[in-house]
């Protein structure tokens, strides 16, 4: 199994190279002349030419590619014109904010969707089965940013139960020392429960919006996978052998049903990264989604390149993790083909 996992990790290397090339080509193919943009509207042609040379844009594409790769190797993603900050610093501080939101949203969604799907599958036609159907239908028809706006309107504006949707922490609190970059975890490490509660309160609405969005496909897939497995021959064998219901449902059926659920989980996670961009905007969340939108509006190309690169690497890592989970769950993986 370990050698299989090792092989899978090595096979991720071509994807990484592909991502590097595509990111490079894509940013060079974007319309607009970055040099002219940098120089400003009043610049003379000589000034623009000067800037083009200083940015290295006068060189041939292969030469530029070599420069790009060697910069990347040193961790240099260029500077943002809007903030003047190195892009790498921006991404390193903003990525944890986005990940904290996305991962917590996914966690909440899994914790609700999987038991819901299992219960619905083991009691077909029951109240919980119908509830599952209603929730999944409602979930897919509501985009996350819309649920987010609705939650803000009702729970903050109307009822005043939730804190203002303005970033990761209420202004009265100062951020905990950075260890993981996740405010909730960092606050716990410090033992500062007040900050932990405040950070959690800020997370509540956006996480709910994301969780509702991802609940539907997960619950539906869990239910369908469980139903299929529970009708299979080996479950009948287990029943005929007198194994108790809990052992059959959780020990035998659930692990087999996990395979399609893990696949869906991967898909849902990538939807979530996309949905995140708009949800962050709604909640003024200082994540990389907000960062990318601002850069896009300002035609700030280095941050866009950094954003695309980060996202692409996240996808590659995600697929790697999903495949490794597959290897762990299913002994047949790697033998059939």
């Amino acid at each position, binding site marked *: 199994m370990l050698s299989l996992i090792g092989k899978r990790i090595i096979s991720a290397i071509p994807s990484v190279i592909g991502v590097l090339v595509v990111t490079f080509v894509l940013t060079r193919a974007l319309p607009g002349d970055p040099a002219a943009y940098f120089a400003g509207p009043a610049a003379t042609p000589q000034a623009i030419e000067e800037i083009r040379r200083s940015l290295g844009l006068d060189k041939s594409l292969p030469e530029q590619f070599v420069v790009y790769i060697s910069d990347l190797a040193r961790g240099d993603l260029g500077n943002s014109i809007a903030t003047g900050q190195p892009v790498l610093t921006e991404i390193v501080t903003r990525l944890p904010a986005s990940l904290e939101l996305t991962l917590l949203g996914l966690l909440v969604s899994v914790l609700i969707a999987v038991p819901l799907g299992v219960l619905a599958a083991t009691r077909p036609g029951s109240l919980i089965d119908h509830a599952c159907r209603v929730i999944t239908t409602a979930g897919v028809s509501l985009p996350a940013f819309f649920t987010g706006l609705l939650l803000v309107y009702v729970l903050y504006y109307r009822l005043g139960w939730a804190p203002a949707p303005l970033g990761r922490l209420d202004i009265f609190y100062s951020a905990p020392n950075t260890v993981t970059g996740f405010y909730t975890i960092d606050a716990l490490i410090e033992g500062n429960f007040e900050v932990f509660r405040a950070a959690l309160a800020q997370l509540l609405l956006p996480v709910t919006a994301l969780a509702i969005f991802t609940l539907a496909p997960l619950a539906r897939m869990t239910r369908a996978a469980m139903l299929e497995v529970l009708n299979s021959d080996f479950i009948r*064998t287990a029943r005929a052998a007198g194994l108790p219901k809990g052992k059959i449902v959780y020990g035998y059926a659930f692990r087999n049903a996990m395979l399609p659920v893990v696949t869906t989980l991967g898909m849902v996670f990538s939807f979530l990264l996309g949905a995140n961009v708009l949800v962050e905007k709604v909640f003024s969340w200082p994540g990389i989604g907000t960062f990318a939108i601002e850069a896009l509006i300002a035609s700030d190309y280095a941050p866009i390149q950094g954003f695309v690169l980060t996202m692409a690497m996240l996808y590659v890592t995600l697929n790697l993790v999903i495949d490794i989970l597959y290897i762990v769950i299913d002994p047949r993986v790697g033998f059939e083909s």
Partner: protein
Amino acid sequence: MSAVPVLAVDNLSVEFRTRSGIVKALEQVSFNIGKGEMVAIVGESGSGKSVTAYTVMGILDAAGRVDSGSAVFGGLDLLQARESALREIRGREMSMIFQNPRVALNPIRRVGDQIADVLLQHGGITRREAPKRAIEMLARVRIPDPERRARAYPFELSGGMCQRIMIAIALACSPRLLIADEPTTGLDVTTQAAIMDLIAELGAEQGMATLLITHDLGMAAEYCDHIVVMHAGHVVEMAPTAALFANPRHPYTARLIAATPRPTARLADLVSIPGNLPDLRATVIPACRYSVRCERRKPRCEQPLPLVLGDEKGSMVACWNPL
């Protein structure tokens, strides 16, 4: 048959509720199995053989409903028993093996662990002893190199091996009754014989009764003491094997024997059975469900079926005009 049968099925009727109406899958099925006996239920596909077995095991599909009858096993009516009581019996006193063994085992659990699961559930042994006992079981079903095979997954084993594993699971707790539902379907011919020999041998060792469900009359004749012939949810005839073959009394049995290949018969002598099973969803089903296919039909055949007892012990035919 011994005085007290291991399993006594009496007057069993089962219905299935489907979208296209109620299917009367079994009607007044009765038969007994004595201690150490091997009894076959034979019949073509859809005759209710497997439904009978599933009903007795209590693992009938949710759409199926027992309409009437009883199935007494060890003094307990299985059809009235609570699920918790049944779970105690299943796998310990009464086991079942299925067709297509490669898909009838959990694909992502090591076979040794699957045997150990049953032992832990019913065998009254500790978690530490279970793997060792599982390996012993593998050796008993003649799997070579049992220590290594215990760590294999079903997809790494052949169909015959998987069926041996199923037998090991079924016999792990030395049950008094084994139900084998077409245990050799999907296996090649030499493996079929080896599996049947194994079932017969282990059954004889333990004094275990075996109910063999098959469409293969030849196999039933070779291994079983007694044969129950089913057609469209009815038991049409039952008799000791030798008597049934020497002197079949129901026209369907005679047809079935004529349709079975024998070493002496040539291919041209094999006769197919005309017609199909009647539609069991219909509101009016003829009293004799074979009558539409029967060349010996008489006007009297529309009256409720008689149960004519034969001269042989435990033989019966349900026909107004037997051979």
